[in-house]
């Protein structure tokens, strides 16, 4: 018998241990030897399930459970994917009492939970982006506000609002670039932490968070757009104020 590694840890089992397995607690069973341990597959649909699994020889399981010569399903591998449909149809039409499904259809059914979680994450993402846009704008306003005396002096010297706006926007872009690089690094660390934590909680090899070049590119682009936009708004507010007002007069 192959034993779930989690059960091995929890029940302190070792390879070579002899166990009695039965279909009902305390019922008549069969003695088996632990041949090895196996980790759970990285299957999202199983992540929240806490029960243990063991793997027995088919005939032995049939005998222990009183299932006779029955199985729950067959997995069929076809020669190549182009004939899958035809194979499914052929089985459904010819084999007596069977119904064949494509693996992809089953995958769609079993991954419903994760589709919901994914939609939830997307919604949370949208909310986070709105909140961070407002936050960025505030930070940029503060940053630009710190420079109001410099801006007033430049305006009094005759530097145009346009030039001032441009320089503030360039600075905002720089800040946003540096911030997004730092953010991506922080994201990578957070992602590693999330994976480490939830793998331990759910005892699964599943990757909960994956940082791809596409997600990095999207976040950097988004923060650049937000940062520059916020910088532009803040600069425009300052450039439109009379220099003497900026001095507090």
């Amino acid at each position: 018998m192959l034993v779930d590694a989690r059960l091995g840890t929890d029940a302190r089992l070792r390879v070579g241990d002899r166990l009695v397995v039965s279909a009902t607690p305390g019922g008549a069973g069969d003695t088996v030897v632990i041949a090895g341990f196996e980790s759970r597959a990285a299957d999202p649909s199983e992540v929240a399930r806490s029960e243990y699994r063991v793997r027995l020889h088919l005939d032995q399981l049939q005998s222990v459970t009183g299932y006779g010569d029955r199985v729950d399903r067959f997995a069929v591998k076809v020669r190549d994917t182009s004939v899958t449909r035809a194979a499914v149809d052929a089985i459904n039409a010819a084999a007596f009492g069977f119904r064949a499904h494509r693996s992809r259809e089953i995958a769609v059914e079993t991954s419903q939970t994760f589709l919901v979680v994914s939609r939830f994450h997307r919604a949370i993402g949208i909310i986070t982006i709105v909140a961070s846009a407002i936050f960025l704008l505030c930070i940029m306003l503060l940053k630009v506000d710190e420079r109001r005396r410099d801006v007033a002096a430049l305006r009094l010297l005759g530097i145009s609002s346009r030039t001032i706006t441009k320089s503030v926007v360039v600075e905002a872009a720089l800040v946003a670039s540096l911030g997004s690089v730092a953010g991506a690094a922080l994201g990578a660390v957070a992602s590693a932490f999330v994976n480490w934590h939830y793998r331990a909680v759910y005892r699964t090899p599943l990757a909960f968070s994956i940082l791809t070049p596409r997600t990095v590119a999207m976040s950097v682009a988004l923060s650049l757009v937000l940062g520059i936009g916020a910088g532009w708004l803040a600069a425009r507010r300052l450039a439109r104020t009379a220099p003497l007002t900026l001095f507090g007069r």
Partner: protein
Amino acid sequence: MLAVLGVAVSAAMLLDMVMLATGMRQSLRSLLLSRGFQLRVAPKGTLPFDTEATLDSTSALAARLRANPDVVSVSPVLGGHVHVRPRSGDGAALTSVALGVESTVQGDYELLNGGDATADDALVVNDAFLAASHRRIGDSLTVAVDYDPQLRAYAGTRLMRLTGRARFLYLAAGQRAVAMPLATLQSLGGAARADRSSLVMVRAREGADVERTRLWIERTFPRSAAISTETAMRQVDERLSYFRQLAFILGSVSLIVGFLLVTTLVTVSVNERLGEIAVLRAIGVARHRVVTQIVLEGVAIMTVATPLGLALGLMTARWLNGILAAFPGLPEAIDFFLFQPSAAWASLGMLAVSGVLAGVYPSWRGASQPIATTLRQEAIG
């Protein structure tokens, strides 16, 4: 305006996360206790209906349980699936969740209209079943269990009468369900289901020590597990810990964002009014009074932003709840985002405290600027 919007968004997100962290537990608790059963007896090592494992010798088990003076009600339930032939006779059979219950003590559904599943052939169904089967109360239909694909035959069939319409408490929205007398469902399954149940619900006497009763059950029936509401919630909590942790992280983030936002706003406001503050100090207004005044302005922003945040939070909570309600198998009555006044107060309290703390430092710094230097700088520009 920006300040108000920023604080409102932060308040909304915080409220949502407090609702997410507490709502799920609360609505699960209300659901589990809605029919007054505090204990659920299931095969050892399983949660109710989590696997296909069943308890044997149900009648003996129920009798022993009823004999306990601390137990006032025992409701055995057998779960499974039934198939109903379509009206026309062709097409695939309609499959539905089936519950075998003792209708006088059951705690799984609320009868909406019609009669309960008291007679052997009575069937109580939900709206999803009625819609899919195109049947009405009073109709007769043949239900079957355990389809054997090799023999293309069912293990048991029976003609039944549709007597009532009900709302099933623990089933997901849109999930088809029927309930029938426990003995009927057991007999439909043949020897394999004789005297078996998936779960036995137990209601303890008011004032009884539920934990003591639970331990007694586990001692008396070693092959079963007695699960209290608290244990069930703890186990579900473990499975859904992701959402609580997410709520904690995002709640903290929104609190930090709110904090930084107020700090930023107060800093800008103080910088703009350094001269004014210096003059107040020059004419003898005490520093703590100046700080209080500025902090109060921050509190005023939050007071205006809070109702907006509350409305925004409730709207987004509804949206997010709608998304999560599509979880496969989630009971309809479970809300991930449940509005409770305590959650609103908690988030408002946290926000108010963080807002005040956020305003104190910049205003203290502003009020502590050297008066003479500030006045000179403000005058010179």
